């Protein structure tokens, strides 16, 4: 800057240069070449998934489906439940999950529904005692603490309900007791009704449809655990540090597993296999992604507001430096000023020439 320039102007120019330096550094760090606009395409953003991400998330999702639909694992789980239902279980796991004689199964030796009448064949769990969210007197915590005492009863709720996830049918999804209704004077349940309506094989078909659509099984929990663990391991090994990309990867893994399960059930027996554990994990990741995205948007809004405010202040400073300049309403006025300046200059030259 020239030696006779205004100190305020000097400061503004210095600030502007500092901002430009900062911007240049940020562009270098982000590896963005403004001369090549292709670099600004979405797939170059660090949150974007690459080919390996797509491939492995789909593989992990399908692995989960293989676990859920494996008959050998299903039979193994069934044996664990059978053993834990015996009077004297033979295996260690059977002993741990022992639940023979619990009052949430039978009342006075009989399966009943929530109004005390005989339960419909094959549906005793959905009709009584197996819903931790039940507001009625059949809530398992109420029934089992009444039967076994507070501490043992509470423990027994977990033993019994976990044991039932190993059963062929599985444990009905929590909240099912809210879907009770009365039909022909008898208490029944919406989930049972839906299962019967989609069954193509009578009561046995309804039982299978119910088992596939509205229950939680240990096998499903295992599949969910596998997808979670393999996704975690992949994210750790690559490594992927961007939270948005991590969540997108998990959403793709869980989504693949859930949809592949649904498709497998529809193709094999005409009823979708709904893995509620995977579905819950999928929803959790989607919610997490939305929250994270909202947080980032809020941060961007804050930064934008700051930049707008700084820009406005800078603008004011720039206008302030030009306040001493005279503005004219017409072009002729500017020409007149030039003529005046020329005359003054001529007078000065004359003055010096006279000397």
């Amino acid at each position, binding site marked *: 800057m020239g030696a006779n320039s205004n100190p305020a102007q000097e400061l503004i120019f210095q600030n502007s240069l500092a901002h430009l330096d900062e911007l240049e550094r940020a562009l270098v760090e982000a590896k963005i070449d403004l001369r090549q606009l292709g670099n600004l395409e979405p797939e170059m953003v660090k949150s974007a998934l690459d080919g390996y991400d797509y491939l492995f998330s789909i593989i992990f999702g399908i692995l989960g489906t293989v676990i859920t639909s494996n008959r050998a694992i299903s039979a193994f789980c069934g044996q664990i439940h059978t*053993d834990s239902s015996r009077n004297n279980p033979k295996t260690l796991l059977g002993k741990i999950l022992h639940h023979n004689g619990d009052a949430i199964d039978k009342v006075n030796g*009989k399966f009943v529904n929530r109004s005390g009448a005989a339960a419909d064949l094959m549906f005793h769990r959905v009709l009584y005692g197996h819903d931790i969210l039940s507001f009625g007197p059949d809530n398992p915590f109420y029934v089992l603490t009444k039967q076994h005492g507070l501490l043992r009863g509470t423990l027994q709720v977990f033993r019994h309900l976990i044991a039932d996830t190993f059963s062929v049918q599985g444990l009905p999804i929590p909240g099912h007791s809210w879907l009770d209704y009365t039909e022909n004077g008898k208490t029944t349940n919406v989930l049972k009704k839906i299962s019967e309506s989609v069954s193509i094989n009578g009561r046995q078909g309804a039982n299978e449809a119910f088992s596939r659509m509205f229950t939680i099984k240990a096998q499903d929990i295992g599949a969910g655990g596998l997808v979670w663990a393999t996704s975690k391991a992949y994210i750790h090994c690559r490594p992927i540090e961007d939270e948005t990309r991590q969540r997108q990867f998990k959403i793709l893994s869980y989504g693949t597993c859930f949809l592949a399960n649904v498709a497998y059930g529809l193709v094999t027996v005409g009823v979708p296999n709904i893995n509620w554990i995977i579905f819950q994990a999928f929803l959790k990741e989607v919610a997490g992604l939305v929250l994270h995205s909202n947080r980032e948007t809020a941060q961007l809004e804050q930064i934008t507001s700051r930049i707008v405010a700084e820009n406005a202040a800078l603008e004011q400073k720039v206008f302030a430096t030009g306040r001493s300049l005279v503005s004219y309403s017409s072009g002729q006025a500017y020409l007149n000023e030039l003529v005046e300046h020329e005359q003054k200059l001529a007078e000065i030259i004359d003055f010096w020439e006279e000397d």
Partner: protein
Amino acid sequence: MEKVAVDQHLLELYQENNLDLEVSLSWVLGYVQMEKACRLAHLRPLPADTVLEPLPSGLVQEIRGTFPNLKLEEAVHFLAAMALVLGGGE
């Protein structure tokens, strides 16, 4: 435990299907309506080939109480066959 004579062929079917006689009997008994079961006076005779199976005394008493007019072996055979065809459990 009490020993009850059970049709050998039926037991073989239980083993083939990985089912447990005690658990399946207990399960199907939960759906039997006693007032109707009490009215049964006889079922078909038990086959000649039987095997003595140990069953918990409590379960045996429950079967006797549910089917007071039937022989124990007949009731067990009936319930075991019913449980098998219903899938053995939930």
